């Protein structure tokens, strides 16, 4: 077809900030040439709430509660990393039982978070039955959280010097039972995502990011591991009780939407095994220091592997109750830039599925 000078081949379309396929508000200005995406500009700030400012007006103890409310799916990772930073400044070593209980809280959250993301993937491919099935399986993890922690999302498990919940024999038996129910279902879901042609057709070779591109944008978490980067904070910078556990780090090479979903599903299966290991190895003793420790003046960095990847906190204190500066960077903050590479050459119809594949958290990103 000869080019018609009257008709511009390239046009710009808006996606968001409010869009049926996006879970949270983010605005993408997408340049398209026919069906193909040629460029994207990301415009953020629609749910900026100033939580960072607020943390500098609250005491250390209040901030444990406040940071849990930055995000819902990785709510536990925020107070976990914040208290780790405070403990680094004060030189506190938490009791061994508390270290294991921290891992249990974190891994239960990871299971629920990852299952939510792969469920939404099924929804975006139009496979509603699979979406509802995965959400129903995820409900086992939600019930587990509600039973053990008393809440479906915010666990309120962390405190400076340890944890705020304990497990007795009855609760441990219940958890093992729930994990036994969950595990075969997760294996079946993995098989479905590996073989189902509806899923494969929409996700294989879509939204590809190469390893060197993922390194250049500083991608973290499942987005990085699906592109072949063997990096997991739990292994390279162990914290809590991860140095006493076997932490498998699955990686894939293709860097497409499907690989990212599979990494999350493998991690769900691994987390279930790690939860069982924790319950088996769980030592006795105290769950926290029994008092609110004073945090002296100092500075510290702490990081953990949140469901979406590396979460890092910087804390500066001056000996007062209120910290001088609290700063954190969530994994999604890094992974947005990866979209510039993933969108290259993709189709308009795949935009939503690619955005979902980085498991973006907007309220986390903008705080």
């Amino acid at each position, binding site marked *: 077809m000869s080019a018609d000078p009257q008709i511009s081949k390239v046009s710009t379309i808006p996606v968001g900030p409010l869009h049926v396929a996006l879970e949270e508000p983010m605005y993408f200005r997408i340049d398209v040439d026919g069906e193909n995406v040629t460029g994207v500009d990301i415009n*953020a*700030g629609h749910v900026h709430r100033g939580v960072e400012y607020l943390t500098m007006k609250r005491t250390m103890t209040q901030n444990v509660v406040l940071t849990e409310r930055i995000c819902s799916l990785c709510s536990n990772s925020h107070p976990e990393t914040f208290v780790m930073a405070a403990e680094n400044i004060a030189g506190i070593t938490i009791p061994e039982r508390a270290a294991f209980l921290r891992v249990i809280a974190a891994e239960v959250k990871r299971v629920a978070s990852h299952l939510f993301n792969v469920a939404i993937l099924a929804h975006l491919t139009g496979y509603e039955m699979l979406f509802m099935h995965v959400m129903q399986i995820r409900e086992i993890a939600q019930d587990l959280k509600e039973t053990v922690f008393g809440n479906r999302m915010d666990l309120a498990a962390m405190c400076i010097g340890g944890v705020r919940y304990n497990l007795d024999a009855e609760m441990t038996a219940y958890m093992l039972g729930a994990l036994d129910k969950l595990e075969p279902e997760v294996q079946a879901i993995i098989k479905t995502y590996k073989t189902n042609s509806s899923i494969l057709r929409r996700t294989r070779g879509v939204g590809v990011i190469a390893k060197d591109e993922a390194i250049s944008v500083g991608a973290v978490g499942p987005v990085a591991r699906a592109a072949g980067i063997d990096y997991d904070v739990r292994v*390279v910078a*162990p*914290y809590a009780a991860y140095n006493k556990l076997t932490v498998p780090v699955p990686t894939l090479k293709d860097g497409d939407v499907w690989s990212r979903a599979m990494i999350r599903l493998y991690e769900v299966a691994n987390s279930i095994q790690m939860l069982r290991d924790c319950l088996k190895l769980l030592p006795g003793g105290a769950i926290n220091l029994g008092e609110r420790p004073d945090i002296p003046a100092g500075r510290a960095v702490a*990081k953990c592997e949140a469901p979406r990847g590396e979460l*890092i906190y*910087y804390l500066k204190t001056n000996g007062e109750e209120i910290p001088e500066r609290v*700063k954190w960077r969530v994994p999604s903050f890094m992974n947005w*830039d990866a979209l510039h590479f993933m969108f290259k050459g993709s189709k308009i119809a795949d935009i939503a599925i690619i955005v979902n594949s980085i498991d973006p958290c907007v309220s986390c990103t903008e705080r």
Partner: protein
Amino acid sequence: MTTRLPTDIEARLLAAAPGGIEFSSEKNVQGVTYAWCGLAQTADLASVAKLLVELGARLSMISGLQPPAPAVEEEEEEDDEAEDSEDKAEPVEKPAPTTFGGTAIDGTTYEINYHFDIGGDTLTVIAYAPHEGSVPSLTPYFRPASWPEREIMEMYAVTFDGHPDPRRLFIDASIDKAVLERLIPYSTLVNAASTKDLWDRVLAGKGGQS
């Protein structure tokens, strides 16, 4: 697969930053190193960044902060001995507090912390900038520097020289700059200011006049 922070990092940082460095490093019980490196001159930032690119570092986060001026009362509360010696030396005026490198700590200057990850170890490089000052942008060396630098530019009165896209990141362009340095009423920030009637009623309730 990952190389950790090299043992001779201090010497290599010093070679890259001829202006001088303030280095400290600590390894925790789980074998993870947290190192800190203050730079005397922000001009050295580029050569330090080049070194860190060679080492395969990943720019993990940039934290900007505006350290408050040290409280005056605290100095008086020191123990008796210190007080005695201070009495004798009273005519000698104490030098104004400064950061490493000589930037004043008077509540208006900035400390920019660059947190680098090297195979799980964390190296924090610190640059100091005066109020309304600038530091070189690290975007030529580290692509992930872009968003954090834009965020710091909208939060504080500091700029990153050479940033390719210095637009606002989260905060709307119509809002005054350096929002983190001032109290901005939430209603103004979200453009949801209430009517004058409500304000009049609030004042009337307090017994004042509008």
